[in-house]
């Protein structure tokens, strides 16, 4: 199966379990299981290539200019991890089916699980490191959903938040590291980066890149000092813990360290950072785990400890260390998943995970006992189980590791770690299953149905099989190790066997196991000591840190953003002016290249009118109606300016928009106060005036500057002018740009316009559905209303004008491609024609005659435009490719048929619908309770009797 499908399958089918929710729990789990199985089978179809030592690639260019390509690579290492993720995933899905309670939403659970699974598979199969980062972040997000799955538990929410914060921050650091790495190597493809060991390690940026990438790995893999999130993530349902903390999430960091091993390892920096963090984590995790009473917490810290062990092995930088790490990843995944599932079983059956309340379960739950004991013994490093083999290799490697010239510290710490590791494993077995049977379990324990114990049992079979016959795993582990090492080192020849003779590692192992038993025997006094010792509580520290950051952020932001809009606006304006000034002052200013064009008396007159209107607005803005009139003058002068400067299309658009905007503001002013009261101090007005003048001077300076200079690079407009007729079939270049060259832009714009109109509709509905409705219905207008609101003269005039306006709109629409005009302008003109009817003849009368709802018109417009674009797919062209032809039907002249015209029709309809729907919202607010909408167009009509007319007016 193609690598793309393997990665995409979980994502594509992520919604299936959610949709299957109604079909029952079995169906939900079944579909998830099937999808995962399909991906796993797909993965195994590539097995022969991997065994042959080859690499499977998949490549699609995404944003090649950024070096971001959708490249996937499958080698032995990726194959190994993908198998773990999907294989253990299958067991977890089966287990979760029986684990989750009836009230848990199973579809939701499996949806999250599939998202997570897809992201994990994506990480291990990515060849492009930018793509890898995307998947990396996706695992942080999806694991957040999984950990917080039990939303009703505060621990669940806090744990999820902590996990997201820590791994998310690590992810951020890693983005930086990966970008640096890509810059050094000159490529973001792993296959290239892995070939450039020398180049990368000699770069000055090696250390920053290393630290940032390791920050990402350590947070994800819960290495000291970021280990604290993992135990808190245990608030998740057990299947999640078993999945995330055995084979997947926390192994992502380990995977990345292994993946990057050939280029990053082998330097002193790598050794100190990775081995150091690994050693500390291993010992610390093991010690804490011993004293945890919650089964899952114990397992969580043991996971932390084992991750530290693997990290330490990768840190040594030797081929043998890498091989031991790979082997331990495999072994840890098997026994740890089995242990988590066993802990889940115990919790499920006895309703507690507190070791102090357990004990003596071996006869009550014999199957669970066998599974958990074998897995725990393997973790303790007992021979004939797989944990023994990799632990032996770890001790062997530790024995040869020299830290800062010191020969004994690493072996000693390794033994201490193993000793505590053995101790907590023995405690887990001893205090849960052995000892006397009790009679105070919260629930009567018994073995669960097969659905719960079969998945861990299968894993334990693996644990034993590898433990007894290590040669079974040897070729696989060596193949994977070869993939980790790349071409930097040879795979060690060491054979996997149980008996290596009387080597130091054996003695260390014996010390650890015997020591573990001794520690367990002394557990009670040790626990007292532990409880008495002061220990920093990671959660408190973390929360304190978060609170500190929040306080800092507030201290920075609140003075600027205190909820007062005027302050935001002032801050923004001042910032823009300052930034602009900085650019101006530091940049180079060339000499003017354009000559100044003379201005005549008419132009100056227009300018004076506009300036006077603006100044009038500023000083007389408290009279709202007056300022509305004045802004109309400004708009008019702007339109005239457009005509003057060779922009007929703009002028037509501006003037028509001006009309509808004024109507809109008038409608709004109907409800708002007529006057703006004097509230601000002189000081504040002076401040605002200063800001305004500074902004104005800046805008003027910038405009004047570029008006006198030609563009630095040639504008692309030449292309449009040259191809407008040839390619677009129209002589009005502005219109051809709108409907053809930049048709996709326009398509987006009419959608925005439609959304704005629908938004207004929604706001109106909300207003009219709430308490405002009663107030609106009962209000008395503050202005006296005309007795004859719909005068006959106006009605007749608009009625006569209507067809004329429509004809003009039609004409403007048709000629748009070649002469000034087009869909936008025609739409606005048609809207004005319609609005005239509303204004003259009343809302009710006009609405009764409205044949199509405005929403529908908007929708139709967007659809027509979209379908026109899609139409070009059928002839194998990209979206919105236009075509045109000239047709001649004998009696008429030759005329043009262009698909662009169809697109323009969509624009036309969308504009009409949007304008009408917006104004419609405002007029609906204006209706009042005691004034009935007249059914007649005219209030006073000689053709009707006067009484009827008065009734219609509602007086």
């Amino acid at each position, binding site marked *: 199966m193609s690598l793309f499908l393997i990665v995409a399958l979980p994502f594509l089918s992520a919604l299936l379990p959610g949709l299957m929710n109604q079909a029952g729990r079995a169906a939900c789990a079944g579909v998830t299981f099937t999808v995962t199985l399909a991906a796993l089978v797909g993965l195994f179809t590539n097995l022969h290539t991997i065994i042959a030592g080859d690499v499977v690639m998949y490549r699609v260019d995404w944003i090649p200019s950024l070096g971001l390509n959708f490249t996937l690579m499958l080698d032995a290492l990726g194959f190994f991890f993908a198998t773990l993720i999907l294989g253990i995933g299958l067991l977890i899905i089966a287990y979760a089916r029986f684990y989750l309670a009836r009230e848990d939403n199973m579809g939701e659970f499996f949806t999250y699980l599939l998202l997570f699974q897809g992201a994990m598979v994506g990480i291990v199969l990515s060849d492009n490191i930018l793509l890898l980062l995307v998947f990396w972040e996706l695992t942080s997000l999806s694991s957040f959903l999984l950990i917080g799955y039990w939303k009703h538990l505060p621990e669940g929410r806090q744990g999820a938040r902590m996990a997201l914060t820590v791994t998310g921050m690590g992810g951020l650091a890693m983005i930086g590291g990966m970008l640096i790495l890509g810059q050094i190597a000159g490529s973001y493809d792993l296959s290239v980066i892995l070939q450039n060991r020398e180049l990368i390690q000699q770069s000055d940026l090696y250390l920053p890149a290393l630290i940032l990438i390791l920050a990402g790995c350590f947070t994800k893999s819960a290495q000291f000092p970021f280990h604290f999130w993992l135990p808190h993530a245990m608030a998740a349902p057990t299947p999640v813990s078993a999945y995330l903390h055995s084979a997947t999430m926390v192994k992502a960091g380990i995977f990345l360290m292994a993946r990057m091993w050939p280029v990053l390892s082998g330097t002193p920096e790598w050794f100190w950072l990775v081995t150091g963090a690994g050693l500390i984590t291993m010992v610390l995790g093991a010690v804490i785990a011993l004293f945890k009473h919650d089964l899952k917490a114990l397992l969580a810290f043991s996971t932390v400890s084992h991750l530290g062990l693997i990290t330490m092995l990768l840190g040594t930088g030797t081929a043998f260390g890498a091989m031991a790490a790979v082997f331990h990843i495999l072994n840890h995944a098997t026994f740890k998943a089995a242990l988590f599932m066993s802990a889940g079983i115990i919790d499920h059956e006895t309703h507690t995970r507190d070791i102090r309340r357990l004990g003596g379960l071996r006869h009550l739950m014999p199957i669970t006992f066998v599974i958990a004991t074998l897995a725990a013994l393997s973790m303790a490093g007992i021979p004939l189980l797989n944990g023994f083999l990799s632990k032996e290799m770890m001790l062997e490697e530790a024995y040869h590791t020299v830290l800062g010239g010191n020969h004994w510290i690493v072996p000693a710490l390794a033994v201490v770690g193993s000793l505590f590791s053995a101790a907590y494993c023995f405690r887990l077995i001893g205090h849960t299953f052995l000892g006397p049977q009790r009679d105070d379990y919260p629930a009567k324990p018994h073995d669960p149905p097969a659905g719960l114990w079969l998945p861990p049992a299968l894993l334990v079979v693996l644990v034993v099989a590898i433990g007894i016959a290590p040669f079974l795993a040897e070729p696989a582990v060596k193949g994977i190790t070869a993939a980790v090492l790349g071409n930097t080192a040879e795979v060690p020849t060491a054979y996997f066997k149980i008996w290596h003779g009387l080597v130091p590692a054996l003695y260390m192992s014996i010390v650890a196991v015997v020591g573990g038993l001794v520690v367990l025997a002394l557990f009670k006094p040790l626990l007292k000591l532990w409880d008495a010792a002061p220990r920093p509580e990671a959660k408190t520290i973390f929360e304190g840190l978060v609170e500190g950051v929040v306080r800092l952020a507030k201290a920075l932001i609140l003075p600027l953003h*205190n*909820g*007062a*809009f*005027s302050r935001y*606006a002032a801050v923004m304006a001042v910032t823009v002016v300052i930034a602009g000034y900085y650019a101006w002052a530091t940049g180079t200013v060339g000499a003017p290249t354009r000559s*100044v*064009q003379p*201005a005549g008396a008419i*132009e100056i007159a227009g300018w004076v009118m506009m300036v006077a209107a*603006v*100044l009038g607005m*500023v000083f007389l803005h408290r009279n709202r109606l007056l300022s*509305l009139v004045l*802004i109309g003058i*400004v708009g008019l002068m*702007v339109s005239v*300016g457009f005509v*003057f400067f*060779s*922009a*007929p*299309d*703009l002028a037509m*658009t501006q003037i028509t*928009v001006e009309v509808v*905007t004024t109507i809109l*503001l008038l409608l709004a002013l109907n409800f*708002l106060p007529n006057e*703006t009261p004097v*509230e*601000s101090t002189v000081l504040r007005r002076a401040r*605002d*005036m200063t800001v305004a003048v500074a902004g*104005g001077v800046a*805008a*003027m300076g910038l*405009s*004047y500057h570029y*008006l006198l200079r030609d563009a630095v690079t040639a*504008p692309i407009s030449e292309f449009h*002018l040259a191809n*407008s*007729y040839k390619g677009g079939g129209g002589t*009005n*270049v*502005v219109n051809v740009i*709108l409907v053809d060259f930049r048709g996709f832009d*326009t398509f987006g*714009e009419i959608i925005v316009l439609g959304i*704005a109109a629908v*938004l*207004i509709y929604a*706001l109106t509905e909300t*207003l009219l559905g709430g308490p*405002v409705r009663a*107030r609106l219905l009962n209000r008395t207008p503050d202005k006296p209303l005309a007795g004859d609101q719909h005068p006959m003269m106006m009605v007749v005039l608009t009625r006569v004008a209507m067809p004329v306006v429509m004809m003009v709109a039609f004409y403007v629409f048709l000629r748009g491609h070649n002469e000034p005009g087009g869909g936008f302008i025609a739409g606005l003109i048609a809207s004005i024609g319609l609005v005239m009817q509303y204004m003259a003849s009343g809302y009710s009368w006009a609405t009764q005659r409205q044949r199509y709802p405005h929403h529908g018109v908007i929708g139709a417009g967007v659809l027509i435009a979209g379908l026109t674009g899609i139409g070009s797919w059928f002839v194998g062209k990209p979206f919105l490719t236009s075509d045109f032809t000239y047709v001649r039907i004998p009696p008429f002249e030759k005329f043009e048929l262009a698909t662009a015209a169809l697109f323009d029709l969509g624009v036309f309809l969308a*504009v009409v619908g949007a304008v009408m729907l917006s104004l419609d919202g*405002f007029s609906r*607010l204006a209706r009042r309770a005691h004034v009935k909408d007249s059914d007649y167009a005219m209030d006073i009509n000689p053709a009707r009797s006067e009484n009827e007319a008065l009734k219609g007016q509602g007086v």
Partner: protein
Amino acid sequence: MEILVASAIGILTAGGLYLVLRMRTFPVILGVSLLTYAVNVFLFASGRLTIGAPPILTDATTYTDPLPQALVLTAIVISFGMTAVVVMIALGAYLGTNDDHVDDAPGRGEDAV
């Protein structure tokens, strides 16, 4: 000519900014409209000022730059939609609370004076 257009842009900006900094919704909306004019003219002027050479293909040899015009044309129409939305929000706020202040918390800080 250039100085007229540049100063017009400057005055529109200044007037718009001053009104945007007012405390009631209606002047702020008018201020935003003035700023819209300023921005549209500014963008339009980036094609430089050309008199008597519209971008309609004829036998002429020089044309004005059509691209800023196309961009500004849609901007004008969109600005209508945006104005309508803002007006509706302002109206809703006023009708709901009988208060047309734009600031979140009158009575706090200097902006309340």
